[in-house]
């Protein structure tokens, strides 16, 4: 909960900095927000080039997760997508591909449709937050690209996901 608040706060700060054109001091703000370089996370944060895909993955969060056979976004998923939308507003030249994924506990073709629906629902939420539809594509991978290989809920929960991949042109 505290973490989530901190993240929302960080988005707000970032927005303020972009709006006021003080991007050069952004690193300092992040260090304040994330604890001033005293832990690993803050170090990664300070190393990621703002506007890079690393920045997006580490500082914003590139993925949201789903319950079994579900396509609905829970509060955690919505919070991440809100941060993604804010970040995308900072970098209007960047577009993304949202990959939909499912766990191995379904049949192949159903999982393609399910993962397509997951990606579409994530995109619809981004669009509702003001991200233009032409900046976002989707690819459904079904159960074909798991990130975790074990055959238990610990892995399946990581595989039921929609991942936003940054395209920098």
């Amino acid at each position, binding site marked *: 909960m505290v973490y989530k608040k901190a993240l929302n706060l960080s988005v707000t700060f970032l927005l303020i900095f972009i709006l006021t054109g003080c991007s050069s001091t952004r690193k300092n703000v992040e260090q304040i927000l994330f604890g001033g370089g005293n832990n690993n996370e803050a170090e990664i944060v300070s190393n990621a080039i703002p506007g890079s895909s690393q920045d997006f993955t580490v500082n914003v969060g590139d993925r949201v997760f789903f319950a079994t*056979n579900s396509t609905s976004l829970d509060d955690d998923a919505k919070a991440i997508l809100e941060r993604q939308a804010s970040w995308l507003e900072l970098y209007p030249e960047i577009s993304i591909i949202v990959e939909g994924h499912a766990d*191995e*506990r*379904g*049949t*192949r*073709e*159903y999982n*393609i*449709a*399910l993962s*397509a*629906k997951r990606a*579409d*629902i994530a995109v619809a939420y981004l669009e509702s937050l003001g991200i233009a539809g032409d900046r976002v594509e989707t*690819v*459904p991978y*079904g159960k*074909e*690209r*798991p*990130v*975790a*290989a*074990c*055959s238990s809920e610990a892995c399946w929960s990581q595989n039921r996901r929609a991942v936003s991949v940054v395209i920098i042109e």
Partner: protein
Amino acid sequence: MTNRMNRFIFSLFFLLFYSTTSQAALEIDVTEGNLRPMPIAITTVIDRQNEQLGLGLDITKVIASDLAGSGLFYPINPKAFLDEVNSVDRSPNFNSWRVINAEALFTAELVYDNERYRINYKLWDTFTEKSLEANYLVFSKSKWRNVAHMIADTIYTRLTDEKGYFDTQIAFIAESGPKTERIKRLAIMDQDGQNAVLLTSGRDLVLTPRFSPNGKELVYLSYRNGQPQVYIYDIQSKQTYVVGTFPGITFAPRFSPDGKKIIMSLQEGVGSNLFEMDLSNFDRKRLTNTSDINTAPSYSPDSSNIVFESDKSGTQQLYVMDANGNNVRRISFGTGSYSTPVWSPRGDYIAFTKISKGRFMIGVMFTDGSGERIITDGFHNEGPTWAPNGRVLMFFRESPGEDGGPMIYSVDITGYNERKIETPGYASDPSWSALMN
């Protein structure tokens, strides 16, 4: 007492035997789980012009392996043979075959002439001493496996009164590499796992191949252009082309029974709907129009109906509709969810994957949903495909865990005679062809 009893049992046995043989000389009922395979003597194909017994012996082995693999026949070990067959023209000494319990006898000889082979073969009923089949095939050497499968199909047909399924191929996905970075290639092999050929390089993710009814093309899913789209692969020319341009993702393609149309799913916003595309002009026709996941379609063999899966009830269930999309009715009502329905080529059954209590099963039901029967049950069984005679299924079974992966199995629709198909590596998404010749 024992004498009278013995005589009674003997006469009972005689009656039983007499009544079965009087109707049809020798016949196996393939609809029952067959626990006693028919003993058959398959004599080595006589090969006078080749002292090494090379080709004749190879053909013999394939015929015996096909028949044994069906689970309906028991080829007798040639070491038990009391008689030697030196010619297909002479009538065999039936008694010497009856003594070793051979109910049927196969004899054949190979003649080589002008770079063509000719095989003359006969099938005998050793009890009635009648010839059930006398025929020949002319072939070039490279086709010897097909010839062996065709002869095995003929033997199967004469002794079961059902069409065979040995001279067929399986399209499948050959899998390699770790689970998180699996490489998938389009592949085909003979029904017995021989002659496996990889058709794609593995650069693009490919899934769910299905044979065209004439066996010359495959329709499948490829991520060639980043997005999953339906493609057709021409096996002879090795050419690929995309099946129409849709405003979205297309998947789950199948040929119509006449091979002139493709039915598939189109993902559109919140749902996936079924479309039919005419391959002659790429005209497309919408068959469903809901915000659910409607996929995995399969035509009835007479093209009048389509079975598919939909989650409109909240879970995946099976539905049948008229071929024009009207008159949708649910047919699956058991516990759990149902998917990947496939209509039998005979029209009598629908095979499916069932998921219940975290287990994945393969089953069959009649086309109205009655008579559900589970054929195999375990951690993960998926994607049944029918042999052209509608009596045998293949499916894939995935083992759990980080090193887990799929293998293809065949099984009778009775649930008996499950066999793993030997493939070079992991293999999934089998699709059984029609008879090739």
